[in-house]
């Protein structure tokens, strides 16, 4: 087997430096008048079309399969639960998982780890799934990375699903990476699109570079093909009476490792409004609010709309809002159905955290604020007048 290679033809390269500027990974540099590849290269191929002189070619090595691919069949989704409540993202995974399973002509299973979850597992069968695999053990009641990773790795090794999807949640993103390492397969984080290729491979699309670039990823020679999927991106499945499948209940039967982490306490976030990532509507405030008290009116508006309150980094750094509300590059990435930006100018670092929202309303005094560039509806005006008027319009007291 030969390795992948990015070849630069020294006879064709004129030293124009266009490829150096094009490479997102800083993998091309100049050696005198010749472009050369350094170790940063991911063999993504982005440079090749940029070369007007046809000097760059990408040779992709044919990899041998790490396992017998034909042994792997079926789509599994991870039925994440917190305090016994199956999380919203699971229904979205079922929706997408069903579509993928139908394209492949294979069954769809939901895997639930927890304790005393019989009723919830039976309820999952009312969705378009073929089977629920329930692993029941008191040790699995609350998430813990080691036992969760061990149980899931063991089941994957034994039953060989070809695709495994989980929510890109704090839990999903923490323990799936362990599973992928343990079973020696690829895991693509935070996917926003999933499809099946003509070769029956899972085509995983995800944003990179803060959403400025999309990348599609393949895991061709390892199984299962694993992805974590962003919440609120896929269409949730509705109950449709199910497929007449069964719950297969397994015990961990003392096979769990002694966990080297122990949960001492749980400190719930004390907030009037709902979880930012779950919210369909987010009312967000920035520097333009001027002081912490101004967030009260955003909370009022959010409450009337059934939404959550977000914040720009400026407002968090000023101590007006807790960090858990921060939207943007160093905060949360959100994708609600509606994002209302109040007094947020729209620095690029903020935009990358919210520009994928279905619809965006921006209210700002500054006509030139970059937030208007991504807004579905914009209004140039004073948030201290518009927001209270919106509250009154909804029948609230401003």
């Amino acid at each position, binding site marked *: 087997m030969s390795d992948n290679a990015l070849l630069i033809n020294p006879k064709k390269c004129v030293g124009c430096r266009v490829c150096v500027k094009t*490479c*997102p*990974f800083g993998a091309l540099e100049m050696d005198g008048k010749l472009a050369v590849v350094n*170790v*940063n290269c*991911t*063999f*993504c191929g*982005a440079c090749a*079309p*940029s070369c007007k002189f046809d000097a760059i070619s990408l040779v992709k090595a044919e990899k041998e399969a*790490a396992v017998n691919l034909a042994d792997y069949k079926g789509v599994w989704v991870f039925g994440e639960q917190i305090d016994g409540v199956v999380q919203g993202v699971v229904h979205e995974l079922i929706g997408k998982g069903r579509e993928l399973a139908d394209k492949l002509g294979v069954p769809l299973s939901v895997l639930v780890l927890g304790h005393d979850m019989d009723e919830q597992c039976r309820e999952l069968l009312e969705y378009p799934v073929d089977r629920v695999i329930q692993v029941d053990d008191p040790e699995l009641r609350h998430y813990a*990375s080691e036992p969760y*990773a061990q149980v899931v790795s063991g089941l994957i090794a034994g039953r060989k699903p070809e695709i495994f999807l989980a929510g890109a949640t*704090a839990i999903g*993103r*923490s323990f799936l*990476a*362990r599973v*992928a*390492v343990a079973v*020696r397969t*690829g*895991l693509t*984080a*935070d996917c926003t699109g999933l499809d099946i290729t003509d070769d029956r491979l899972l085509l995983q699309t995800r*944003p990179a570079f803060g*959403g*400025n*670039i*999309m*990348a599609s*990823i393949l895991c*061709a020679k*390892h199984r299962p093909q694993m992805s974590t999927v962003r919440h609120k991106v896929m269409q949730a499945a509705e109950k449709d009476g199910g497929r007449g499948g069964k719950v297969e209940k397994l015990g961990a039967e003392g096979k769990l490792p002694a966990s*080297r982490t*122990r949960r*001492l306490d*749980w*400190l719930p976030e004390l907030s009037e409004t709902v979880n930012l*990532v779950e919210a369909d*509507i987010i009312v967000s405030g920035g520097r333009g609010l001027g002081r912490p008290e101004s967030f009260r009116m955003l909370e009022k508006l959010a409450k009337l*709309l059934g939404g959550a309150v977000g914040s720009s980094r400026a407002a968090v750094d000023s101590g007006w809002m807790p*960090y*858990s509300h921060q939207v943007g*590059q160093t905060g949360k990435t959100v994708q609600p159905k509606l994002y209302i930006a109040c007094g947020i100018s729209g620095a690029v670092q903020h935009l*990358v955290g919210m*520009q994928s929202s279905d619809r965006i*309303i921006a209210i700002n005094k500054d006509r030139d604020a970059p937030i*208007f*560039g991504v807004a*579905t*509806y914009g*209004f*140039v*005006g004073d948030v201290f*007048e*518009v927001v209270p008027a*919106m509250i*009154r319009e909804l029948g609230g007291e401003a």
Partner: protein
Amino acid sequence: MKESTLHIVVCIKQVPDTTEVRINPETNTLVRDGVESIINPFDAYAIEEGVRIRERLGEGKVTVVTMGPPQADAALREAISVGADEAVLLCSRAFAGADTWATSLTLAQAMRKLRPDVVLAGKQAIDGDTAQVGPGISCHLDWPQACYVSKIREIEKGGAVVECLMETGKEVLEVRLPAVLTVVKEINEPRLPSFKGKMRAKKAEITIWDEKAIDADPEKIGLKGSPTAVNRIFSPPRRSGGEMIEAETAGDAAKILIAKIKELRIA
């Protein structure tokens, strides 16, 4: 270093200042003009936390490690300027093209050699945003992990108590060490380099290890060792042009906006 003192290793990544990376919609190629390389912001919190732990305990050692090209030397020196003691650069052509599986293996091999008591890293890097390398390292080493750490309440050789930021609250975890802890922004406010720190960074000797130095299986590193591969990169769909609401008064604007919201039938 005494046997009883804590050896803290911080994994960092040099990243392009991502927000500046763009695709030219006409040519569908990437535009990277004048993009600077920075230490991944989340890793800066990990460096700061490592230095604070050493300062709090009054002893110990902070080693920063990165896998990258020779230019990543700059990121390591920056880490030394804000308080790290030593730095290791994992640098070899054989590491190129690594996905999170191969990257975490490479870093794990370095840990076998460095034998830290605790590994700190940012929760994710802002270029790839995967958050997979930290947990990956701990799995390769069969260590426990705690992700999204917003506070280290206690730490000593053999154990730590940390707070982890989840979607709906914080989980307080007792973690046996050695372990990998990935940190979020809330944990601290990184300091700026001091003049003395800058001088130290300039003179510091950076250790460079290749795949042989860390005894890494050539089949499990770099592109060869990576289960996933980038198939294609492209520009995200552009947002359709927005509509500016023209209204005489704030009250009129509010009426129009609320009507638009009601049309969406989500409120």
